[in-house]
Structure formats: C-alpha cells, structure tokens
C-alpha cells in the first residue's frame, strides 16, 4: 500500500492546497534577461535580479520591512468599512474573491499603513500590495490611505507612500471612484500641516490611483522601468490602433516628461527617502520653533493668527476627523511669553 500513499496522497494534497507564489528552494527566471536566480539570493538583494537589475514586485510587508530601521514598525489599524457594498458578482461573488485575497496575502485589504523610524526620524508609511486584487483602490484601501495621512498629521511626521495598483476596484463601482476625492482631502490636510508627502511609484501604478494620490506628492520617486500611467498601454493601443513607442509610460519616460523628480534604484531608495525627508523636515522644524515662539507670545495677548495665509489657511474646524495642529511642545525651545502689539488683521 505504500506506493498508493506515496503517489496518491501528494496528488490529493496538491489539489487541495493552494500553491505558494515562490515556494522554498525554487529558481526564478528573470523576465528581462532570462537569467535564473535562486529565490533566497533574490530576497537578499531586495528582490532585484543581480545581473539584469530587474526590479521584482514587492509585497506591502516587504516594503515596510525594507523602509523602517531594523525592519521594525507598528501597523496602524484602519477603520473597518462595508465589505462588498454593491453585493457584486460576475462569474464569482466579489465577497469570495475578497476572501481569497485576504487568505493569500494575510492582509485585510490592499494597503498597509505603519509608523516607525526611518534613519531615526518618525515617519508614517503606506504600502500598496499588488498581490491583493491588483492593489486596487476600493473603500478599504482609500480609508487606509486617509488614516495613514491623518496619522502623519497627528504625529507631525512625513508621509511616504509606495504605490502599486491596477487602478480602481471595479467591484465597488462608483464607491471606488469616490476614493479619488476622498484621499485627496487627506492630502490637503497634510498640505495644511505643511508636512512632506513623498510618493514612491512602483511597478505598476495605473488608473485611478495615478489620477489621484499617486500624482499629488511633494516629491515623486519612481523605481526603474516601472509602468506608470493613467490609461494602460492596451487601452491606448486599441484606441489609436498603432504601436506604442519603446519605453512609453515607463519611469524614465515620465522623468523625461516632467512628471517625476527622479528614478532611483531600489538599493538607493531607503537612503534617498531618508535624505529627502530629513532635508524637508529641517525646514519644518525651524518653522515649528519660530511658531512656538510667536504663538506663545501671541497667546499671551489672547489673539491667535495663522501666518499670512489669507483665505485658504483658515483654521476653522475641518471635518469630524479631528486633527491636532502641529504641536509646539515637540520642540525643545521654551519661550518666555513677551507682550507683542497685535497687528490689525488684514481683511
């Protein structure tokens, strides 16, 4: 009976269990050069094929682990949203597809958000997992991006987003489209708090994600040869019925056309992010110190001003998600309140 156990059992097991994407001990072929790489070597090289420099896609957890100091970070909980709001079904129920994606990725949805230290500096980050239904933007992913950005405002920290998405989650219909303005509102909160928002565009970033939060960063960094576009190459080919130029919609093309600031190799990514965040935050810290000084002075006069920001910077309470203003006590400066003549408010 041994032969039956040895032959039939593994077959049945194979049918019942889903295969892992990259099983242990497997050699992987580079799609660019055809070179064979041992998966452990690939992982050790931050998923960049050593010879060809091909950047493999990374999952959200891999992204976060590579970003934060010592791969240590705290995941931020995302408020739960209605699952399957339209009770959508095509050949399969969307609810089932969601269940599968959750099981396969061990994530609740496509976006993970976390806080931790980058080169000693507190940062908040969001990473989009392409393996979760093509990283598509639905209600849960939108809520995650919003929560992450508001957390950054709360902490007075820079926000770093790794975009990877096929676009909107079509199974959520119009509600997925609504995530475009919704996430943009959170970006405006970051902007009002004058905190850096850095976008890392990875392969692929397309559709509604590109047409909203992925293209509204202060700084846009792309990984080499990533597909970054609004309409995908196939859609354009079908519309205009001609061959697309070589390298069209790739990172280097976007750099040449002024849409991104730089194309950075993954090995240099972490240090670039740390440098950029530190340089921008240096200015923010100085302003905080100055504001703490003048804020303390003005408070003693019972007046409060937003510095010269006219109509847009009005600090009227915005929306229910209460966002504390940048906290002056974070700076180590202590200031003696001294009376200052209040300026007449400009009208």
């Amino acid at each position, binding site marked *: 009976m041994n032969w039956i156990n040895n032959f039939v059992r593994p077959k049945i097991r194979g049918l019942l269990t889903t295969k892992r994407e990259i099983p242990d001990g497997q050699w992987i072929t580079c799609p660019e050069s055809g070179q064979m790489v041992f998966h452990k070597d690939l992982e050790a090289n931050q998923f960049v094929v050593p010879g060809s420099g091909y950047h493999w896609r990374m999952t959200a957890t891999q992204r976060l682990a590579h970003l934060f100091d010592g791969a240590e970070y705290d995941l931020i909980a995302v408020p739960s949203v209605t699952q399957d*709001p339209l009770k959508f079904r095509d050949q399969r129920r969307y609810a089932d597809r969601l269940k599968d994606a959750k099981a396969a990725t061990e994530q609740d949805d496509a976006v993970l958000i976390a806080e931790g230290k980058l080169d000693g500096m507190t940062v908040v980050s969001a990473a989009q997992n392409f393996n979760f239904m093509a990283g598509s933007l639905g209600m849960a992913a939108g809520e995650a991006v919003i929560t992450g950005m508001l957390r950054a405002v709360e902490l007075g920290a820079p926000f770093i987003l790794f975009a990877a998405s096929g676009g909107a989650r079509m199974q959520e219909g*119009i*509600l997925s489209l609504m995530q475009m303005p919704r996430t*943009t509102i959170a970006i405006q909160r970051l902007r009002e708090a004058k905190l850096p928002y850095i976008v890392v565009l990875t392969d692929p970033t397309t559709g509604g994600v590109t*047409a909203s939060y992925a293209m509204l960063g202060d700084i846009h960094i792309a990984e080499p040869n990533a597909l970054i576009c*609004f*309409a995908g190459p196939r859609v*354009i080919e079908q519309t205009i019925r001609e061959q697309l130029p070589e390298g*069209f*919609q790739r990172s280097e093309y976007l750099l040449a056309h002024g849409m991104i600031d730089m194309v950075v190799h993954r090995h240099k990514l972490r240090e670039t992010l740390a440098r950029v965040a530190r340089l921008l935050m240096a200015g923010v810290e100085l302003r905080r110190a100055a504001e703490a000084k003048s804020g303390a002075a003005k408070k003693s006069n019972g007046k409060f001003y937003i510095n010269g920001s006219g109509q847009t910077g009005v600090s009227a309470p915005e929306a229910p998600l209460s966002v504390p203003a940048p906290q002056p006590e974070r700076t180590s400066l202590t200031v003696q309140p001294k009376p200052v003549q209040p300026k007449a408010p400009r009208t």
Partner: protein
Amino acid sequence: MRRRALLVKHTVTLSAQDALNAEAPLDQSTPSTQPVSPPSAVRAPIRTYCTFEKPIAELESKVNELKALTKAGGAVSITDEIKRLEQKAKAALVETYSKLTPWQKAEVARHPERPHSLDVIKVLIEDFTQLAGDRYFAEDAAIVGGIGRFRGRSVMVIGHEKGSDTESRIKHNFGMAMPDGYRKAVRLMEMADKFNLPVITLVDTAGAYPGIAAEERGQAEAIARSTDCCLALGVPIVSVILGEGGSGGAIAIATANRIIMLEHAIYSVISPEGAASIIWRDATKREEAATAMKITAQDLEHLNVIDEIVKEPVGGAHRDHASAIRALGDAVAAALAEFDGKTPAEVRKQRHDRFLEIGRSL
C-alpha cells in the same frame, strides 16, 4: 516649438478620427441610427432611436406617414386614426421609460441628441463669455468653460462638450478631454475662487482621452490636480451629470458641494463595456455589467453619492430639450442658493465632509 505644436495638432486630429472609426461598430449596437424623414417644420421628430425604442419608432413613423397623406389627400377619416396612433405611441413611450434597465439608461445617456453642455449654457447662461486655453500648451475644446450670468448671479461654467454633428464632435474630441482640458478647468476654477464666482460644472464624458499625447503630458496628474482644485475652492461648486459621468474624466470636475443628476444619466468608475471585457472577459456581458455596477442616478442616490435627481420629460431629455434644461436650471439655482452667505471655510468644509461621509454609513 511652433513646428511641434503643428505636429501635435495633426496627431490630435488623426486620433480623433481614429476614435470615430473605433466607435463605429459601437454605434451600431448603441443608439441605432434610423433616418426618419427629414425634420418637418412643425416639431422636428428625433432622428435617432435607441435600440429598445423600436415599437415607438414604428408607431411614430406611421403617424408621420399618415400626416403626410392627410396633407396630400385631405381624407377626413384618417385624423382619428392619427390621433389613436399618436396616443398609442405616447403610451408606449411612457411605459418604456418608466422601467428602463441600467443598460437602456446608458443608451439614453449617450443619445446623440441629448442636450449637451453648450445646449444647456445657451439656454441658462446670459452673457456667456467663453474662455480658452490652459496657458501651458493648448486649448482643448473637449472641455468648454467661461463666465456668464445665471439667474442674476455671475458664475463660472465648466463642462465637457461632446459635439452635435460630425464636425463638432471631432472638434470637441467626443467630449474626451486631454490634460490641457483639465488644466484649463483648474485655471477657470481658480479664477472663480479669486473673484468669488460660484462654479457650475456640467459632466458629460465617456472618460478622459486615452492616447499617447495625453499620457505624454500627464493625463493622470492633470485629473488629480483638477480634483484637488475642486476640493480647495472657497466658492460653492454645483455639478450636474448631464449624460455620461465617465470615471476619472468626470470626477476631475465633479467633486462638488452638490451633485445633481438627470434622471436617465449614468455615472460610473468604468463603462459597462469596459467592465464586461475586463471583469467578465466577455464584451457581450455589458448589460449584466451595467446592472451589477450600479450606474444609474437612482442607484447613486441610494448610495448617497449624489444629492438630487432631476426628472426628465417623458421619453428622455433628448425629446424635449427646453423643459429638461428648465428643470435642471431650477435645481442648480436651488443648490446654489443653499450656500448664500456661507464663508469660504464653511463651503469647503461642507464639501470635504460630504465626500468623507460617502460609504461610511452604508
């Protein structure tokens, strides 16, 4: 530079024609074009019937035939017959339009004779002064805009324009905007903010144009900036979905304080055809896709994505522009009036709260 501009212009025209070719097979299945006698002097009968309107088209053409006969012969007995047929046609119209399926609504929303932005502007906006250009690269006629007076108040109007005949459709690129169109919209919205003019946007697009030049100049960024600009304004924005609200190309100018939809308009993250071919992997499943995606005004009101539905005349807005546009004007005026006396911060806050609330209480 000039040479480049010329070259680009050439490619744009070419691609517009390509789009026309590409749409040709679509047109056969969507509203089928049935030339029904040249427009008569009394009341121009509509020239295009939707596929589901076949019985109505037959009745109406019979009525027209009989009318022509009466004119020629003057036989008395047919007038009753004409009346009877007219009533039958009317009843069929009421019956059909009271229970349109989502896909049928898509056909109505795309009807070539449906009132488009310029038709609405012509009726509702006095002293309309069209403004052009994004000040960076080009003038994109797929989005039209300008200042004018709406029921006594100065306003900024911005809308997608699909065009009404072959020539104007090509000129307006079938309402599919390039990045330049969205950048123009941003320029006009910022101007409106500066001069404290409320903004009215008219949405009617299959989507932003998917092409090489559009991608080259940053279609995604242009849409994102336009949405961003809508959210930052201190003046009220009222959006009207006239026909098709096509995805990112629509939301770029539809992120408003109040969103109004015509009764048979549709608004969706992707066209039913697109969803059918991507999710179902079968382009013929568009009717199923239209239903599953919840694209009708009634569905969207239920989901709290839009605020108000404006009823269309029996048989759709394309059968009676005047009353459709009048009703639309009333709804816009009422929506704008709600923001009278509000500060910029209050107007902005209402808009932000409105969008953040979407989906939270489903």
